[in-house]
């Protein structure tokens, strides 16, 4: 006899089994995560062009928030990359630019072996946004004005890439006289991330033209250092790499749990990226 309780637990278990199956398969992996950045850096002299699209479902309304973030990334040295981006969204009822950010990442530890590495990097972002501050969550990628800095460690081991980061965020008032209205003591937060990546296809590399397919699973969390409130999200995604030069990520981000006020935590994201090597 199968009671309703066991049915429920079987339903819960199935996605976990699928996830472990995907992570345990014997192919090689990737670390080009969708929702976080790995400790590895860009090739010297390369330029990457990225377009991030988020289609987020605003809670308690029928509105869809669309965020568009075009970005340009430069490989300055073997240990340093910088990038700049512009934030667009339709949150204020018209689609308009709301600001931008500058990001830098410095790789300070690299321990390479054939088909594996352990690396660590420090990163920072300075962000400007002139939209209204509409949630307790602090987000330097299209919502708040402020700074974020942290460290990330990435372990690549043949078929699996595992990465984890911690960063400190400090929000200030947004532009256009849009104040941070959730309390002076609640402008600071810590972000914790944990990312798994796995190369699904091809089973064996033969040439650079082969399309790579990666599966990513990421956990994204924030704890406000003032209020102690938190959120925890899960973000699975599928990534296609074409011609060893271009990539398309398609993912879904979903809130698992929160005590922070958030307006649109759930939605789809699509990232388009193309890399030009040896151009700087």
């Amino acid at each position, binding site marked *: 006899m199968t009671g309703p309780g066991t049915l429920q637990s079987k339903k819960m278990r199935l996605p976990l089994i699928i996830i472990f199956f995907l992570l345990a398969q014997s192919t090689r992996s990737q670390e080009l995560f969708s929702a976080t950045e790995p400790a590895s850096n860009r090739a010297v*002299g390369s330029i990457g062009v990225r377009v991030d699209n988020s289609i987020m479902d605003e809670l308690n309304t029928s509105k869809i928030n669309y965020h568009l973030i075009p970005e340009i990334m430069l490989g300055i040295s*073997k240990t340093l990359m910088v990038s700049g981006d512009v934030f667009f969204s339709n949150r204020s009822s018209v689609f308009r630019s709301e600001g931008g950010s500058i990001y830098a990442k410095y790789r300070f530890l690299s321990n390479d072996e054939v088909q594996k590495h352990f690396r660590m990097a420090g990163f920072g972002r300075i962000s400007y946004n002139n939209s209204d501050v509409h949630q307790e969550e602090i987000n330097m990628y299209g919502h708040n004005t402020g700074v974020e800095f942290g460290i990330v460690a990435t372990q690549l081991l043949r078929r699996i890439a595992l990465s984890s980061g911690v960063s400190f965020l400090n929000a200030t008032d947004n532009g256009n006289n849009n104040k941070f209205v959730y309390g002076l003591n609640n402008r600071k937060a810590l972000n914790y991330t944990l990312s798994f990546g796995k190369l699904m296809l091809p089973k064996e590399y033969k040439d650079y033209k082969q399309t790579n397919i990666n599966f990513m699973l990421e956990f994204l969390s924030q704890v406000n250092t003032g209020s102690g409130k938190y959120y925890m999200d899960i973000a699975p995604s599928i990534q296609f790499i074409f011609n*060893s030069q271009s990539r398309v990520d398609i993912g879904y981000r979903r809130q698992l749990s929160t005590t922070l006020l958030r307006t649109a935590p759930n939605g789809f994201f699509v990232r388009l990226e193309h890399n030009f090597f040896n151009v700087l």
Partner: protein
Amino acid sequence: MIAISISLATKAQVSKVYLQASGLTCSMCSNAINKALRTLDFVDNIDADIRTYTFELSFKPGSRVDFDKIKNKVEDAGFSVAGFVAAIYFDNVQLKNNQPVTIGGNTLLFVNGKDRALNGEIRVKLLDKGFVSAKKYKTNALASLSTGEGIYHVTL
């Protein structure tokens, strides 16, 4: 400088370099190395085996093959060299104990193969920092030996 002044004048040239890159498993990473190596003016052609992360480099005739520049290109792409083998064509070079051999601007210090004649294509493996994995470098007891520019410890 001492090494250069007493080194043998040789008739020899580097015909190929085989290098294995480390720290990567993705084709986009391998492609970054491939494209970086192609920017070296003395490189004629590159055969990349992305299954084993190995690159076979051939060179323009008469050009100086700069091992350091090759290694630096791999590092600039964001990765490391785990193995570096040079195929060198020797024309009857007598190898004597501890005596350096100069080949097209590179000075080689052989750590084995004493007192033998080198003839035809012979592969030598570089042992210096950056040309082997960090782990191997620590264990091959060369850590205390420093070399100047263009001077390399090699093994047959």
